[in-house]
């Protein structure tokens, strides 16, 4: 219908390109290497932001989960952070970090830290204390107790957080890349906007959607591997 509308001229090229045009553009952009190159830049940004978020969230989540004072120190800060929408920090980050790569990565990191932290914290606190006790009775303590019992026990909940964070990272990527990007999908979109190339914009939107989907698929695969021990409610 979209195709038909475009062909008959009901949907002008300026408003929305025809699917066939979009497909053509997709091939052209891929063949020229323009799309893959920019996609890689965007992926690298998301990955960098997520890596920082993972490091911070896992440290803070363990700190707050494993000790009373850790909770007292860390949790209120994280809860305050949660009440500020991450995207609202954009202007501040531009002032602080300029318009280079830093604010983009920082935005992604900040936005994805909380879901990972919160779920890991809940996972650590929700651990079956009877298992911890049994493990202690067999001589586990300190780091070995964390590694063998607490982390694996918190893993299901951690994965929930990770999946959520990946979704958020794509969302924030879209916004962050509007900040004067010299490369990346956002840059591609901005250029296309200036030349009113709706076909390129649609291609980029589709790629963003694909990114979100593949991120989810990736975590699902990781989850299936890591949680193979878990009897599943729904038969695989």
């Amino acid at each position, binding site marked *: 219908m979209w195709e038909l509308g475009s062909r008959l001229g009901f949907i002008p090229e300026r408003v929305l390109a025809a699917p066939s045009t979009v497909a053509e553009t997709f091939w052209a952009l891929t063949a020229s290497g323009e799309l893959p190159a920019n996609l890689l830049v965007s992926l690298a940004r998301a990955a960098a932001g997520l890596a920082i978020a993972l490091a911070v969230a896992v440290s803070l989540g363990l700190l707050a989960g494993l000790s009373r004072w850790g909770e007292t120190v860390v949790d209120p800060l994280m809860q305050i952070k949660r009440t500020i929408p991450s995207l609202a920090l954009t202007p501040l980050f531009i002032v602080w970090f300029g318009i280079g790569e830093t604010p983009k990565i920082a935005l992604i990191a900040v936005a994805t830290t909380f879901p990972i932290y919160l779920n890991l914290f809940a996972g650590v606190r929700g651990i079956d204390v*009877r*298992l911890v*006790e*049994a*493990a*202690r*009775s*067999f*001589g*586990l303590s300190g780091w*070995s107790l964390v590694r*063998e*019992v607490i982390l*694996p*026990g918190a*893993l299901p909940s951690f994965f929930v957080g990770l999946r959520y964070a990946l979704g958020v990272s794509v969302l924030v990527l879209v916004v962050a890349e509007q900040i004067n990007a010299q490369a990346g999908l956002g840059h591609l979109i901005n250029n296309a906007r200036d030349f009113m190339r709706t076909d390129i914009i649609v291609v980029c939107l589709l790629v963003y959607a694909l990114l979100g989907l593949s991120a989810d698929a990736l975590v699902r695969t990781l989850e299936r591997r890591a*949680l*193979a*021990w*878990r*009897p599943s409610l729904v038969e695989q």
Partner: protein
Amino acid sequence: MVQPRIRRRAFDTAAPSSTPIASPAVAPAVKLTGFVRQFGENRVIDGLDLSIAPGEFVALLGASGSGKTTLLRTLAGLDPIGDQDVTTPGARAVVFQDARLLPWKKVWRNVALGLKDKDVRARAEAALKEVGLGHRLDAWPSTLSGGESQRTALARALVREPGLLLLDEPFAALDALTRLKMHDLVLNLWSEHKPAVLLVTHDVDEAISLADRVLVLNKGKIAAEEHITLERPRAPDARFQAIRRRLLGHLGVEAPAPHEGALIAFPTGEAVQ
């Protein structure tokens, strides 16, 4: 084998030894004197004396809430004891009522939990073979039956060659037939490895068929004690029934008509106080 012994906070003053010791020549594996444990106002253990000889099999009976688990946890080192005097072997192992296997570790890794030598896999494998689970080494715990889980928990305890094996109602959740098989298994393992055993149970018949000595916990103290000298395996004959009646009396239960013939498991329901 001489077990390393732990004496948590020893007193210098000689403790009064009014406790009957099974074999007075040997130093006991477990010794508690005037032990007290309370939760708030609730004195669960109140001046309890207990002594278990190395290699002795002791069963502990008592009404629900009488403090059996509390005592076992103390001996396992899971609860704080303050500055009281508690002597136990260094190597202790617990089998809980719920097997408490780590669901994310395969069966053999559960057995090997916390072991540090090189050939832990071989040791875990040997222990699992001993309990008849040599074929489930790489299974996930969630795929085990209740009896298999408890056998895994037994293997996990025994692989440590404990000087004291603590069993907290390990068979309570099993069906009668499986329970009888587990009794044989425990007796075999016990005569093989000879740890001192403290078995907490609700089941008077279970206590009499397995233990050298049966204790009844009441009001925070050992209220009664029966030495069982019957030959193993123990048939529910007249002497068995006499012991059973006495123990049920200590538990405050009217002894029902004696069972003849087959060993019928006493209903595991709570003894009435």
